[in-house]
C-alpha cells in the first residue's frame, strides 16, 4: 500500500488519538478472549485450547505493538494515515481464530 501521510492538522476532534486508543482497546479485548480460551483448556484438560489461548495472547501482544506503532504514526508533526500493512487483516484473522477456538471450547470435554 502506498503510504499516505499529511502534516498534522491539529484536529480538535482528536481523531488520530482516538484511532490509536481504539487499537489498545482491541488488544485488551483479544487478551480477554485469550484468558477465556486458556481457562476452558485447563478446565477441560484440552491442550489444543490452551494452545489457542497462547496464540491469542501472542495476537494480543501483536495488537499492542501495532497500537504503539499507530500512536507514533499519529502524533507529531506528520501523520501517517495508511494503517500498517496487513494489520487489519491480521486482527480479523485473529478474531476468526478466536471464534473457532471459542466454538471448540463449547464442545470439548462436556460441561465442567
Amino acid at each position, binding site marked *: *500500500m*502506498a503510504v*499516505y501521510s*499529511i502534516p498534522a*492538522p491539529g*484536529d480538535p*476532534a482528536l*481523531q*488520530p488519538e*482516538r*484511532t490509536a486508543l*481504539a*487499537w489498545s*482497546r*482491541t488488544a485488551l*479485548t*483479544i487478551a*480477554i*478472549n485469550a484468558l*477465556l*480460551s486458556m*481457562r*476452558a483448556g485447563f*478446565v477441560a484438560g484440552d491442550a489444543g485450547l490452551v494452545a489457542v489461548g497462547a496464540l491469542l495472547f501472542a495476537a494480543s501482544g501483536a495488537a499492542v505493538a501495532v497500537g504503539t506503532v499507530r500512536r507514533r504514526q*499519529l502524533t507529531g508533526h506528520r*501523520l501517517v*494515515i*495508511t*494503517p500498517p*500493512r*496487513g494489520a*487489519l*487483516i491480521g*486482527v*480479523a*484473522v485473529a*478474531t*476468526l481464530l*478466536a*471464534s*473457532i477456538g*471459542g*466454538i471448540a*471450547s*463449547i*464442545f470439548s470435554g462436556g*460441561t*465442567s
Partner: protein
Amino acid sequence: MREPKWHEEGHQPDYRFTLANERTFLAWIRTALALLAGGVLLHQFATELDPRLVVTVLSTGLGVVAAVLSVVSYTRWRGNEIAIRTGRPLPFSWVLPALAAVCLLTSAVLVVMLLVT
C-alpha cells in the same frame, strides 16, 4: 503482501474519513470479540440453566456470529474505503439490523430460561 488494486482507485480521501473507517473496523472487531466472550462465558459459568442443549445452541450461535462478523468487518472496511476513494455513497449493509436481531433473540431466550429455571 502485494499492493491491493483498489488502492489505486480514485483519490486520497480526507484523512478523517480514513481514520474513522479504521476505528469503525476496530469497533466491529471488538463487538465480535465481546459476543464471543459472552458465548464462552455463558457456556462456562451458566451451569445451572436448563435445558443444557439451549445453552449450547446459544453459545455456539454467538461464536458463529463472532466468526461471521470478523470477516464482515474487514470486507466492510474495504468496501467503505473504496467508496470513500471513488466518491460513491457508502454501501448499505444488513449487518447492523441483523446484529440487533441476534442480540434481541439471545436476550429473549435467556430471560425465558432464567424465569423458567
